[in-house]
């Protein structure tokens, strides 16, 4: 193994990513929630079922919880874990901004400098952007979150689907 290839590999598999992979945060499906979505990466079959629970606070809508069940590779699992760390407790506006920042980083082909203040552990994914085949892995749960949160905002009176059963 030449060191160049090894460096790339280490840039992809940052310790932070492997840590989140082995010990994912906020894993499991929880109540209450207003929307649940199921996203699949058709290329490789990675899957995530993701729920969001939004509440109305004094300063607008807040992401009170994001819970999930998922199967997939280290990148997709770690990115889901980091996502929950970043958005839980934030306002939806802030959460969407973080989403956009992460998206820009991932689609930058390795040219975007990550902002640690916004992305925290998420900056570890900067190396992923150089591996086009893995970008989809990193984005799977982020897309699911965006989708779920947007569904709730579009129909704020939607009751918890579990409760309405």
């Amino acid at each position, binding site marked *: 193994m030449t060191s160049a290839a090894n460096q790339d590999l280490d840039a992809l598999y940052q310790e932070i990513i492997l840590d989140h992979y082995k010990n994912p945060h906020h894993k499991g499906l929880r109540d209450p929630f207003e929307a649940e979505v199921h996203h*699949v990466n*058709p*290329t*490789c*079959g990675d*899957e995530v079922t993701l729920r969001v629970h939004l509440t109305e606070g004094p300063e607008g809508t807040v992401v009170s919880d994001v819970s999930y069940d998922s199967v997939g590779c280290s990148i997709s699992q770690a990115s889901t874990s980091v996502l929950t760390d970043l958005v839980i407790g934030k306002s939806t506006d802030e959460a969407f901004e973080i989403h956009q920042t992460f998206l820009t980083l991932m689609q930058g082909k390795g040219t975007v400098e990550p902002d640690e203040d916004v992305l925290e552990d998420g900056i570890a994914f900067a190396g992923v952007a150089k591996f*086009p*085949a*893995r970008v989809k892995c990193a984005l799977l749960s982020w897309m699911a979150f965006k989708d779920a949160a947007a569904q709730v905002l579009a129909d704020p009176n939607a009751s918890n689907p579990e409760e309405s059963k």
Partner: protein
Amino acid sequence: MIEGLLPELEVIRKDFPILERTLAGGQPLVYLDSANTSQKPQCVIDAMVDHLERHNANVARAMHQLGAEASEAFEDARDKVASFIKAPSRDEVIFTKNASEALNLVANTLAWATGDLAIGPGDEVVITEMEHHSNIVPWQLLTERKGATLRWFGLTDDGRLDLSDLDRLINERTKVVSLTWVSNMLGTINPVAEIARRAHEVGAIVVVDAAQAAPQLPVDVTEVGADLLAFTGHKVVGPTGIGVLWGSRRVLEQLPPFLGGGEMIETVRMDRSTYAGIPHKFEAGTPPIAEAVGLGAAVDYLAAVGMEAVHAHEQAITGYALEGLATVPGLTVLGPQDAASRGGAISFEIDGVHPHDVAQVLDSRGIAVRAGHHCAKPAHARFGVQSSSRMSSYLYTTPAEIDALVEGLLYTRSYFKVG
């Protein structure tokens, strides 16, 4: 010097290796069959070879470096095609195997569509009498199978669409209007946007066969009023084995899947499957990868020359050819007589010599034209002829080649002793 010719014509010709070929008896090639298939510039061939020799892998499914390179090249081609036809979104560009498959994809998925797009008894599909068989037969099959009615625009004596009963023909029963932008036989350029406007008034969807337009005219899918638009790689200096269907996201998302298999799925269980989003929903199986790379290089080549310039060149050559053909006794041109309202295909007849025999004599002089019905039997029937000869030019065609054609036609008459 004829106005409108490409200024760098000799440089352009050097890009096309086949134009150096000589034929039987040492005759240089005079290729006037570009409406049938176009020749390929070296850059298209080289792009395909480079792909096959250095980057070949399957797309989407492969995680390794070759796979990433192949996927990127393939998806880049989609971007290039999207920009070539000014598609609002790259996801609206679907790779098919040719224009025929693109048109059949639409007719076939409409056969299984539910909701607004469903077609049944009482519904009407409108085409025209100047369509290529590939834009007739799919609609015959669809209307026959679903109990709907096929109707069509007739033609005027000078080879244009007879729009006199536009408002009657396209009415509230009309579900689909499918027509060619440029006729491959008559050369006619049709007023697609005008017809599309009427179709949209009654809620019909508009399918545009751009197989002859895409090589010759600047294409803007929105401006022309299409909901779906088809063209084929091999006529835009690209390879065989690839075609394009563009469709608006709104319509594409309403259509059910076409072919089922790898890449078009979201998830598969033995009892049930769900499908991917556009464009992948319509791209089952391994796509034409090397062909997409070639097509990407092809549309880049045309864009670099400039489609306005290509169009001007075609019109200049067509005008020059119409003048030249007029000097051949007993020759009748089918279709509009003015270059401005037509594309670069000119079909004609010569009294007393059958089109095959015309083509044969020309071929002995190295001049390649097409003879037959050009996959447009109804249009031939409309003009009471069974077949015709057709010359068709492209961005590499020179006035000297037109001179050779005219001379060849005069010789043909003398060979068959009609002159």
